[in-house]
């Protein structure tokens, strides 16, 4: 549904987006994850035709964002970082205005506005001035705007920004309920948000894609690492061979040899606890001494740590 290939956006010498490539299959939710300034918003602005790319290609529902922007705009509902709302308009008047510029047929206008108000629990707010609403309601009005013309593709830039925990859960539920019929791209700098709502995730850092995977694979890599670093006091060659023969272990690499009798190994396992137990038993049975056994190499987690520590706890 969405194809992005080698997308580049430069501002002078600075590349805000640097050869970003990803694709979103129809009916799935993709999470763009990264700290502020990573290039998430720029990528989304290019996808929604608000900004022209400096290089690369992006298509939405088969339409090129540069060559056929009007077609793309008809297919897309977009909630920007700051909800694009007018404080001096009432919620209903605002949605009617949006209906006009999004080419919703005049006879369907009233119905559609009513439906969206209900979908976002805004029924009681219809006659209120948007400027008088709380942040959470404004965000919902912004979301109502994006959903109004029933687009096939939704691009949501930090949809839960500024909401309280209860509202965050509601919005996540809503986004999940929209899945299937629609293809969704959402951005966030909060890790649990991705696992709660998305099918796939693309991690962007300093304009580059540093990881792209399904959320399941990602969680696996985050929770149970398959690589173990093991320190054993014993004859290095024998220990290495014994570890390699252990059940659940697919490979052993020697990292360092017998400094004060202790050697360091890296064992690749199937990730199960049984494999760790078998390794432990193997060492004990041979009367060697186990100094340390640590899961290592979670490059994704490293990235995450880097991202989240910069961001502060969110």
């Amino acid at each position, binding site marked *: 549904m969405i194809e992005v290939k080698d997308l580049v956006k430069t501002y002078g010498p600075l590349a805000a987006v640097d050869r970003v490539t990803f694709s979103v299959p129809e009916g799935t939710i993709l999470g763009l994850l990264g700290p502020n300034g990573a290039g998430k918003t720029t990528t989304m602005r290019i996808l*929604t*035709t608000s900004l022209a790319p400096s290089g690369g290609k992006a298509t939405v529902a088969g339409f090129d964002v540069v060559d056929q922007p009007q077609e793309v705009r*008809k297919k897309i509902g977009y909630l920007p970082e*700051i909800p*694009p709302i*007018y404080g001096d308009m009432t919620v209903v008047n605002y949605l009617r205005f949006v209906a*006009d*510029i999004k080419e919703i047929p*005049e006879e369907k206008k009233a119905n559609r506005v009513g439906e969206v108000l209900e979908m976002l629990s805004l029924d009681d707010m219809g006659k209120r001035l948007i400027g008088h609403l709380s942040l959470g309601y404004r965000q919902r009005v912004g979301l109502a705007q994006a959903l109004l013309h029933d687009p096939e593709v939704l691009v949501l830039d930090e949809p839960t920004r500024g909401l309280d925990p209860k509202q965050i859960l509601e919005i996540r539920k809503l986004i999940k309920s929209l899945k299937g019929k629609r293809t969704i791209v959402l951005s966030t700098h909060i890790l649990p948000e991705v696992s709660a709502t998305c099918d796939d995730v693309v991690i962007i850092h300093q304009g580059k894609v540093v990881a792209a995977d399904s959320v399941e694979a990602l969680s696996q890599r985050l929770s149970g690492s398959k690589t173990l670093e093991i320190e054993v006091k014993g004859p290095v060659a024998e220990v290495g061979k014994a570890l390699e023969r252990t059940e659940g272990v697919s490979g052993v690499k020697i990292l360092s040899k017998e400094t004060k009798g202790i050697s360091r190994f890296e064992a690749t396992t199937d990730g199960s606890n049984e494999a760790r137990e078998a390794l432990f038993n193997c060492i004990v049975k041979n009367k060697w001494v186990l100094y340390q056994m640590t899961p290592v190499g979670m490059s994704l987690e490293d990235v995450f740590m880097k991202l989240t520590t910069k961001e502060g706890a969110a």
Partner: protein
Amino acid sequence: MSGRKIWAIAKKEIGYYFSSPIGYIVLTAFFFATGFFFWLILKGGQASMVPVFSNTIVILLFLSPGITMRLWSEEEKSGTAELLKTSPLTIWEIVLGKYLGACTFFAAMLGSTLIYLAIIAATGNPDYGIVFANYVGYIMASIAFFSIGLLVSTMTENQIVAMVVTWVVLLTFWVIGAAGDQVPGEMGDFLKNISIYKHIDDFFKGVIGLNHVLYFASLIFLGLFLSVKVLESKRS
């Protein structure tokens, strides 16, 4: 080009003028200015509308940035520009919608002067040809101001900057004719020819000159055309 979309944007702008202080400040100042000069007319016992227009066009020059300064600046600043830019709208639809909104608000302002015309018609015998020429000139000059104001507004997200720059541009176009009087030869003629002041004068005398109409029409088109170009350039 869709009338519905253009009108939707125009309606939004008109709604803003009637729900914001700036709209009422402009209206009040306009009513006060036109009312004052009409009162002088009545006092002098004339059956003419000319002083109402010829004296207030300069006041309108100062008021017009109040009408146009926010047209695009505010969209850019509040982030609503993103909505307009990612909706199936062409830049021309956006620009024409905004312009139509400002002009419609002005039409409501100007409509109030019909009361004065009615009073003069009831009490005297005005020359309707002159009145008509006055209206045409006044309207053309005003909507030329708006076109330039809209252009300036597309260039900044700061309303105050938009207002001051519009003043400077309009005043320059106004007084450049006086400069032209001081400069001999072709240069002087050129300065006089691009001055608003030199083109509006004939209308107030009751003459609708084709060259003057073309002058204001060009200003209007140029302002709108360049607004479209500025907004297009913001995408890249």
